């Protein structure tokens, strides 16, 4: 879907991108991660030509991005940024529909599309006439996503979109975004410096440093990265623990049991990390109820699971 070949970019003296090669497949979510100044944002912005690269080639839909008219290219690619950048003088509906209006869509088509997007992002339809300043941070972020998706682009670029939200809201919006992505299968390039966010959302993570991609792999594989000192430093020594958040107890194939002592407040939808947290407080196994089935969970289950994904 998106191919980058030996892409370089220099700002004055500083090299932002130093020969990037990257293939992004259709329908996958690539998360670019790394410390500030590693070039992740520059890489993202070069795809929709918000910045022009110095050398190399970027192809989108098997065509060099230079061959498109720049407005046309950008309309094929959704773009979300931190701070959302909603237009404060326009209502929610006008914000979402601004490009549709430029493209001269019919009024009823616009209404239908806006309603579709709002219900997909679980925003009340009554919000269409609200102004951006009347929205909470999370709501504004969802409207930003709606606006990026308005023309139904198959590629979505997201530049730390949830960076300004408080932790609780951020988690909610992340999960909501994951749900949407499951339905829509957009090709997503996502920039963040939050490792947990990367683990949660990524199909593949690209770890960047000083304008280069150090490592590109699925989140599971980063568990064995301790040989590369820089990588493990940035991802954190507790990477395995963070990785647990990506999986739910349903992924563990737990045994159903009849007898149990007491139940804890978990379900198959809870993350493995939550499950482990309960395990830490119990001497042996813990039990929980999901839909009138009782499951047993122990350290061993988690250990075995980790071994499995490690060798997958």
């Amino acid at each position, binding site marked *: 879907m998106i191919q980058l070949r030996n892409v370089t970019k220099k700002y004055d003296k500083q090299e932002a991108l130093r020969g990037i090669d990257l293939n992004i497949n259709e329908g996958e979510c690539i998360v670019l991660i790394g410390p500030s100044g590693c070039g992740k944002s520059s890489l993202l912005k070069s795809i929709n030509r918000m910045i022009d690269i110095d050398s190399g080639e970027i192809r989108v839909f098997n065509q060099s991005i230079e061959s498109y008219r720049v407005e046309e290219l950008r*309309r094929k690619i959704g773009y979300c940024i931190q701070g*959302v950048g909603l237009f404060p003088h326009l209502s929610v509906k006008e914000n979402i529909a601004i490009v549709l209006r430029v493209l001269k869509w019919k009024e009823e088509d616009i209404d239908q599309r806006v309603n579709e997007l709002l219900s997909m992002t679980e925003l009340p339809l009554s919000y269409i006439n609200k102004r951006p300043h009347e929205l909470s941070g999370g709501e504004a972020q969802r409207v930003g996503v709606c606006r990026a998706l308005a023309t139904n682009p198959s590629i979505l670029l997201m530049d730390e979109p949830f960076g300004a939200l408080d932790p609780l809201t951020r988690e909610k919006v992340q999960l909501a975004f994951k749900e949407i992505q499951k339905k829509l299968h957009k090709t997503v390039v996502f920039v963040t410096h939050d490792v947990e966010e990367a683990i949660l959302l990524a199909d593949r993570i690209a770890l960047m440093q000083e304008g280069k991609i150090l490592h590109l792999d699925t989140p599971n594989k980063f568990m064995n990265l301790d040989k590369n000192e820089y990588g493990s430093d940035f991802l954190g020594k507790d990477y395995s623990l963070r990785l647990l958040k990506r999986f739910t107890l349903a992924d563990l194939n737990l045994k159903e049991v009849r007898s149990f002592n007491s139940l804890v407040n978990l379900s198959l939808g809870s993350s493995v990390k939550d499950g482990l947290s309960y395990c830490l407080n119990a001497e042996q196994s813990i039990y929980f109820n999901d839909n009138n089935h009782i499951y047993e969970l122990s350290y061993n289950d988690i250990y075995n699971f980790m071994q499995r994904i490690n060798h997958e």
Partner: protein
Amino acid sequence: MKDTIRKVLGNLLILTLFFLPVGTFKPNRILNGNDFYSVNIFTFEFFLLALFFISYIINRKNRFLSIIRSLFLILLPVYLIYRIQAFQFIGDYDETIARISLHISAYLTIMGVIILLSTEKYPKIKIFMSLFLVLTAFIFNLFPMLGLSREFINRRETFNAEFFRHLTLAISSLLFAIIPSIFFAYQSTKHEKLREWIMGFINGFQVAPTLSLIALIMIPLSYLGSQFPFLRDLGIKGIGFLPSFIILTLYALLPITSNTYTALKQIEPSIMDSAYALGLNRTQIMFKIQFPLALPLIISGIRIALVQSIGNTILAGLVGGGGLGSIIFLGLSQSAADLILLGSIPVVFMALTSDIIFEVIEEKIKVRMGLSR
């Protein structure tokens, strides 16, 4: 703290009613007048004034008291002027040419009223109301003995013509400044070097004294007019409408340009970024995003320019451009205070009115765009 100073100052100015002359009686336009004091015209009013001062001394925050006080202040100027001009002079005089003028303490009192009103709620509207009452009374000829009325009746035709000429000059020069200003500002946001040039150029006009600029521009214009008779027929000459118009337009450039520039620069980068990233082109961004967001500040720039323009237009009177300035300068040359007032009061009123009108428009736009509540 600042309020307290203003309150004390305002009250002191009104207090001058008790010991400085309030008016002058003149048997005719040329003769020196006989001054008279407030004791000559006031009786029970002293009691009201005393109550008024007491209300400031006890200094309670009370809504009822504040409303009564505002009402008193709004009515004071019109009543004061009415009583002064109703003064009965004992002696021989010809009623058709005798006149009464306001004297020092009447002016100071009106000034005090304006200062005190500025400490109340909605100061601009209240000051406007107060002046409006005076003006209405004037228009309905409730002050027949007032020197000002005499001057007005004597030259009603000229006054009307100069009033509209003043308004036309101020507004037309402003209208001519709007489009170039916005264009300059928009270009300035794109090229830093250009901005320095434009701002230097426009600031240059603002710093130079208006009068000297008019004098400067008279030279090339009169040269053109004398060399090319057909230009002279088109109205291009050293005096009259054109030089004043050009200078006023140049003066109006600064407030609009600098406000528009600030407004365009103030737009958050994330907004501009996402506008570009959505695939809007420059023109679309200009009309759909930048100018709507900048509009309230642009309007406020136009407001400042208009108020300034109305004041500056007075100088057109010096170069034959007409306007109320010509009445003022006539009054100055004859040392006829009433004539000066006849010219300057409408200018103040015009400026105040346009200021209020534009403020309302600005607020309306902000609310409609959801930028304020």
